[in-house]
């Protein structure tokens, strides 16, 4: 085989190119300088986005991965650079986002000496990575990076971190080219699908009178949106989503009955405890979805489709566990199930939806109060984007309201921090999402609390000129915590009263246009102006200070004890 001399640093970049990477989010520093030096010669082939903080970098990588379906790549230096990735790694781990993070490390001979900017990043990140590995010899780079990309994207995706000591980055070695990895003997990403489980599941579905589908992000990660749609359409079943399942099925699909969980819709929550078969697809029965576990769907037979066997029986015991990639298992189910008209059962959902609309939705979307509501802002965004935008939310009340009311026509349009609930996620994730889907409008919906956690990334917007619409819903409170204090802690508002700077002026200092709306009369125009604006734009909307998000399943309650007020 023909070989050529290459440095470890160049081998890292060659690996990125071979894996189809076009964008890298990162921040340089001492221990990763050789890689950045090599990057100087690769500017034509690899676009590097200089972020303002490594946490911003990794959230951008997550946003990129979620909007594009590709692996997000993040560079950071050793020590503080690497530790700043930890929140994003934990977020990507719990939300199954494929990432390859490359961190620089001190020279191998300095490992364990408390060298400048040395941290034991491998051990720090072990619980929050799908896989991690430290390279101290450049010859390992092609093989390990191939393995890293393969592990990150295959099976149940997740973040991988590769720590490369500085000497390995400098080291020249005989490079034999790059071979993609498609097999690791101790790793089984996709199992053999067993026909008997398919048959059992089909039989349960065919005999069901009141089946309910609950789908999660597995449908998106498996790129199985079409297969999923065929499956529910043939069987006529109502389908409800978890927060990360949102946008896998268009929101206006007649069988889409809404969200399950704490701030989900009335019907799917109550009827979880009335259905006779519950078909869970690519979801993991999070406690925010199930509420009180010993009163969750006890009457129903549970069919659980998941690619990760450790999810089956973890929280809710399955009667039939269909272990496999839903891209493959769903068509097998569709083949077996009978075409059915379940309009009567769907009507039960519609009746609940009507009650919810009258009591919760209408006052939120069309308020008669002088104060604006978050819901009406989202309604106007829907009317303007026609449901075609990518909406990236932060964490808190605005997140729940947005996920409840935003309209989506296309998959990979809802990007949010679901499992970890990372405040500060939205702005950097929106930047990454735009880089991952340049042809789409990206709207970042953020609360006044979360925005102040990562607002330094306005600098990234300024420098790259990327087009992200920033919509701050300002209720002058850390709203979700305030809501709980209101409902469960006698209104003892402990440290939730948060002040904001002048966001419009702040944006302006970064060269970003913006406006603030305090009067309903200006709202529609302002949203339209934001969305029509060429380039990034910040719109701050002052909303009611003490509005609560309803419906709500209070913690410790059963999903059927959902409260409308």
């Amino acid at each position: 085989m023909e070989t050529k001399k290459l440095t470890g640093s160049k081998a890292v970049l060659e690996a990125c190119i071979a894996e189809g990477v076009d964008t890298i989010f990162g921040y340089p520093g001492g221990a990763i300088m050789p890689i950045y030096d090599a990057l100087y010669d690769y500017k034509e082939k690899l676009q590097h986005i200089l972020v303002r903080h490594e946490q911003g970098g990794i959230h951008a990588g997550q946003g990129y991965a979620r909007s594009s379906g590709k692996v997000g790549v993040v560079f950071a230096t050793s020590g503080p650079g690497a530790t700043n990735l930890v929140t994003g790694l934990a977020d990507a781990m719990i939300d199954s986002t494929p990432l390859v993070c490359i961190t620089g490390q001190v020279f191998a001979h300095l490992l364990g000496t408390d060298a400048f900017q040395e941290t034991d990043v491998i051990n720090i990140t072990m619980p929050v990575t799908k896989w991690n590995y430290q390279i101290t010899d450049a010859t390992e780079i092609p093989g390990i990076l191939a393995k890293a990309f393969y592990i990150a994207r295959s099976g149940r995706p997740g973040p991988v971190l590769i720590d490369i000591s500085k000497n390995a980055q400098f080291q020249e070695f005989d490079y034999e080219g790059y071979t993609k990895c498609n097999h690791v003997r101790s790793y089984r990403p996709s199992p053999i699908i067993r026909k008997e489980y398919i048959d059992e599941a089909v039989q349960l579905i065919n005999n069901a009178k009141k089946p309910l589908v609950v789908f999660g992000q597995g449908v998106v990660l498996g790129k199985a949106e079409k297969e999923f749609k065929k499956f529910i359409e043939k069987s006529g079943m109502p389908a409800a989503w978890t927060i990360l399942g949102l946008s896998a099925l268009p929101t206006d699909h007649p069988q889409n009955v809404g969200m399950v969980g704490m701030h989900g819709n009335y019907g799917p929550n109550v009827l979880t405890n009335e259905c006779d078969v519950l078909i869970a697809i690519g979801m993991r029965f999070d406690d925010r979805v199930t509420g009180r576990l010993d009163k969750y769907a006890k009457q129903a037979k549970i069919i659980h489709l998941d690619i990760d066997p450790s999810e089956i029986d973890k929280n809710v015991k399955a009667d039939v566990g269909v272990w496999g990639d839903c891209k493959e298992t769903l068509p097998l189910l569709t083949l077996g199930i009978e075409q059915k008209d379940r309009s009567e059962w769907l009507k039960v959902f519609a009746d609940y939806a009507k009650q919810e609309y009258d009591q919760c939705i209408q006052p939120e979307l069309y308020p008669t109060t002088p104060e604006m509501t978050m819901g009406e802002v989202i309604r106007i965004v829907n009317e303007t984007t026609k449901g075609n935008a990518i909406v990236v939310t932060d964490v808190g009340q605005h997140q729940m309201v947005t996920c409840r009311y935003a309209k989506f026509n296309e998959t990979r349009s809802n990007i949010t921090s679901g499992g970890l609930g990372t405040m500060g996620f939205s702005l950097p994730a929106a930047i990454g999402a735009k880089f991952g889907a340049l042809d789409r409008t990206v709207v970042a919906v953020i609360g006044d609390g979360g925005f102040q956690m990562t607002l330094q990334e306005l600098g990234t917007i300024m420098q790259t000129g990327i087009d992200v619409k920033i919509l701050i819903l300002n209720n002058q409170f850390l709203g979700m915590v305030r809501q709980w204090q209101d409902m469960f802690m006698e209104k003892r508002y402990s440290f939730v009263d948060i002040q904001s700077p002048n966001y419009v002026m702040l944006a302006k200092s970064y060269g970003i246009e913006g406006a603030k709306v305090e009067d309903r009369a200006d709202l529609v125009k302002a949203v339209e102006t934001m969305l029509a604006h060429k380039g990034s734009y910040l719109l701050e909307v002052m909303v009611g200070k003490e509005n609560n998000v309803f419906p709500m399943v209070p913690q410790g309650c059963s999903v059927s004890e959902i409260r409308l007020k």
Partner: protein
Amino acid sequence: MKDENEKQEYTITVYTENQVGLLNRIAIIFSRRKINVESLNTSPSEVPGIHRFTIVVEESRDVVLKVVRQIEKQVEVLKAYYNTNDEIVWQELALYKVLSEEITEKVKVERLLREYGARAVAIRKDFIVFETTGHREETNKLMKALEPYGLVEFVRSARVAIIKESAGFHEKLKDFEKREPGEEVTENEYLGKREAVFTM
């Protein structure tokens, strides 16, 4: 069969690649759930290059099953099994250091060796080291017997265990190495047999 939630001793056997850091990856699965590891042994296995962990915990079957699945999910873990005590043959090794003058004057060493199946592994003018192997109760007995005579040092190894039903890992590994492994390896065992999982 015992109740799902009743705690008992389980021996978890894990076949892995020989990789730096894997011990930690496995250990944090227990510590994250606040499970105390009673005993942990790492050693080579019957297959060259493949490592074998033997971990003993006192937990309910339900918890052990979930932990084992998390272990098996780790990239470098090939396979993990869990067994109750009646499904395995196991041993632990214990060493006892006693002062020679104490022990030779007051005890009949010969009786010790016979009664407890002990061996003397070092005999010096100043001290003697005995060794026994067996289950915990057995090694404890000699410890108790020696205590009155000033047991200077005592140490016991982790449990090592052989699974009675196991046919070894040679054949399984061959299957793992294939691009398209057979059902033997990708067997949907948790989901299928339910009650009889992790028998080989």
